[in-house]
């Protein structure tokens, strides 16, 4: 294929779409599908044909529109009208209102801060394109980045742009992507692999899922570019089996991309071959850890092994392997298309670009958002998130999931970037943001996370396997009103031990939620232990309740 042919596909698709005076976009990502958006789409299609206006009104399924809490969401283009909570019976009213003022009872202002405060790079196509149509992706400039990389740039040139853009890994640690790519490209081997980490194990995060469900080609393109840059011809996407829709969309996308020749052999008439295979996870958080993920793809128990050697040296089946997160790959095509300098213009000094967050918990607007690095936490919670539910009082934000920490009110004005988050004892993590209000007990939250780590520990190394159980037992008795004054010291000691001596990242970060709540909410621990009261009213010290 030549660039002209690629652009032709995009042009035809664009013209086809522009041919419709009204375009109705129905969100068919998982959130809205679970509120019957599939039926809503059908009803709208039926209504269009009943009225005989197929020639000038189109209905298409698109990816997540962001405000998942108000689903099913429907967008009317080109008017920019957004409807929320649409049901099957609303179809005729929506069609009636086309071209005129919006149906007021469904109207969801697209001008509210939830939408205007965001900046979209990764999610630029989410809610715009049909995730099952490769043409739609191409119409938005898709696969041009891959073309540029293969036909115009050199592998080193590609890595240079990524480094210049300052892209850092979005999977948790924020390791500079350019450096990682360089390491893999420099390792000599005839066979190399590129792996996309879509295990998204943080319970309460759904960024990667939404990207795969809404814009899967972007990730495939990013992987292919990475393959070219590091000299790999095989790619794997490791997706959680809990995300069947994402798996299906990715498989469809791979098949379409192969048919069009943007994946497979001799891509864009070059000598570059790249194949992508989907591999399913099977419910193990630890498989998000690189070496465990490798073991899992190889069909083994997902137990991590000590690093070094790092996967860039010794990865899948012993070959050099590049592992990046879904969102990291999703950032690659626009960087290659528009250049590293363009990307570096957004964000802070050390954290470039944007970050996708899954906003959930006790806020009014829960859903998928994308904001420039360095956005204030307050803006995210109160402007984009629309404040706390039922006008309650903000207490803390949990970031980074089981590896992260709780950020209290005093840091609401902090900037959301890798360094600032680390400074207050949390991490960026993959982007889960859980907002808590006065009804959330912080000891209970700490117990929740340590219980998670305890049951997700692979059991290989002693500190994590036994230490998490010990920490859990202490927290459990505190939340049952049986805590002892010495328990605080004991918790600190156990946390220090597990953090410093565990084998992999799971154990090394498992104590973080406990440590950060100990740090900022000691008074709540004290209240549980000394006064046998739970200030949030979550824990019940009712001793008559059945005890095990």
């Amino acid at each position, binding site marked *: 294929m030549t660039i002209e042919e690629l652009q032709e596909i995009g042009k035809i698709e664009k013209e086809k779409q522009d041919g419709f005076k009204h375009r109705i976009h129905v969100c068919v990502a998982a959130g809205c599908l679970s509120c019957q958006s599939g039926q809503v789409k059908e009803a709208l299609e039926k209504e269009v044909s009943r009225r005989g206006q197929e020639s000038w009104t189109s209905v298409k399924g698109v990816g997540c529109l962001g405000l998942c809490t108000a689903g099913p969401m429907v967008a009317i283009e080109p008017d920019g009208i957004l409807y929320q909570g649409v049901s099957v019976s609303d179809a005729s009213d929506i069609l009636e209102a086309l071209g005129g003022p919006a149906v007021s009872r469904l109207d969801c202002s697209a001008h509210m801060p939830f939408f205007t405060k965001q900046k979209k790079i990764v999610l630029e196509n989410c809610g715009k394109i049909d995730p099952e149509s490769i043409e739609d992706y191409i119409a938005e400039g898709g696969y041009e980045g891959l073309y540029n990389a293969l036909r115009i740039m050199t592998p080193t040139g590609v890595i240079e742009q990524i480094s210049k853009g300052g892209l850092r890994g979005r999977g948790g640690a924020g390791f500079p992507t350019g450096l990682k790519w360089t390491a893999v490209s420099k390792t000599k*081997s005839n066979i190399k692999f590129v792996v996309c980490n879509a295990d998204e194990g943080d319970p309460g995060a759904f960024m990667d899922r939404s990207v795969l469900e809404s814009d899967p080609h972007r990730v495939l393109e990013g992987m292919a570019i990475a393959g070219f840059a590091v000299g790999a011809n095989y790619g794997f996407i490791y997706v959680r089996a809990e995300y069947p829709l994402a798996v299906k969309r990715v498989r469809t996308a791979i098949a379409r991309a192969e048919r069009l020749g943007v994946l497979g052999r001799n891509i864009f008439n070059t000598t570059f071959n790249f194949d992508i295979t989907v591999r399913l996870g099977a419910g193990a958080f630890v498989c998000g850890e690189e070496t465990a993920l490798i073991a899992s793809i190889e069909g083994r*128990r997902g137990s991590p*092994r*000590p690093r070094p050697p790092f996967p860039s040296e*010794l990865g899948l089946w012993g070959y050099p392997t590049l592992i990046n997160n879904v969102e990291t790959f999703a950032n690659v095509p626009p960087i290659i298309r528009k250049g590293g300098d363009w990307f570096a213009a957004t964000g802070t000094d050390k954290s470039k670009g944007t970050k996708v967050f899954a906003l959930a918990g006790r806020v009014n607007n829960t859903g998928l958002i994308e904001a420039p690095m360095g956005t204030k936490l307050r803006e995210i919670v109160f402007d984009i998130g629309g404040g706390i539910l039922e006008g309650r009082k903000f207490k803390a934000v949990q970031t980074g999931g089981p590896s992260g920490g709780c950020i209290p009110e005093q840091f609401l004005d902090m900037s959301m970037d890798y360094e600032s988050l680390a400074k207050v004892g949390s991490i960026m993590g993959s982007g889960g943001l859980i907002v808590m209000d006065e009804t959330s007990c912080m000891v209970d939250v700490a117990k929740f996370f340590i219980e998670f780590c*305890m049951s997700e520990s692979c059991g290989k190394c*002693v500190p994590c396997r*036994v230490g998490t159980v010990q920490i859990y037992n202490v927290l459990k008795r505190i939340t049952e009103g049986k805590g002892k004054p010495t328990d605080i010291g004991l918790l600190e000691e*156990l946390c220090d031990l597990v953090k410093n001596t565990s084998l992999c990242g799971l154990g090394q970060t498992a104590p973080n939620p406990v440590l950060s709540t100990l740090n900022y909410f000691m008074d709540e621990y004290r209240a549980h232990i000394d006064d046998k009261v739970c200030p949030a009213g979550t824990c019940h010290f009712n001793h008559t309740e059945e005890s095990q």
Partner: protein
Amino acid sequence: MRYPSFLQRTADRADVQPVRVLTFSINGVTVSAREDETILTVARQNGISIPTLCHLDGLSERGACRLCIVEIKGSPKLSPACVTLPRQDMEIITHSDRVMDYRRKILELLFTERNHVCSVCVSNGHCDLQALTVELGMTHVHYDYLHPQQMVDASHERFSVDHNRCVLCQRCVRVCDEIEGAHTWDVMGRGHLAKVITDLNEPWGESTTCTGCGKCVQVCPTGALSEKGKSVAEMTKKRLFLPYLKLMRGEEER
């Protein structure tokens, strides 16, 4: 086809450069070693004893028990000596107060996990775990005991397994797979619910793959695997066969 352990893989790769000799220091003493020798190996060559549990000469490494952690100057992270390769001019400290303290606590955790009452154990006096308490000066356990009741499987005609004494070091799993080639043992479940199993979690005596060679019993560091009908005094374990067997096997394959 079976996957070799990750350390062996490096050796398979043709593009790896010839082995170099490095100089570095352990506890302030300058030592030199081949770059593919672990810190543990070099320390032992130089008469420095680092406590270990999951490591056993002749088996692949796991880096799982964390008892062999050492400090490396300039790095906040502690490194397991059994899997860490030295680098030129590295400064390694094997017995700082910090690591000794951690080692003792890890050992305590092991003692809380399952039931290790030595006085009623067949391996009393010949147990690696018991020896470690002496080596590390662990006098008491200050964490709560968890000891859930575990099973004892005495279905095998010559051996028995007492899960109450298992420390999940996986030596049995490795010796059975890597040396005997039977792969009767593996681990099921995960986290604190993990357990060693034979075949499809079936009684050992009904195993269709077990050759009855007894190697697992010999390498087990505790009284978890034992020979039936042996008195406590007879339960010493013979392990020197391992490096020898491994050598023989390696020569055969060549």
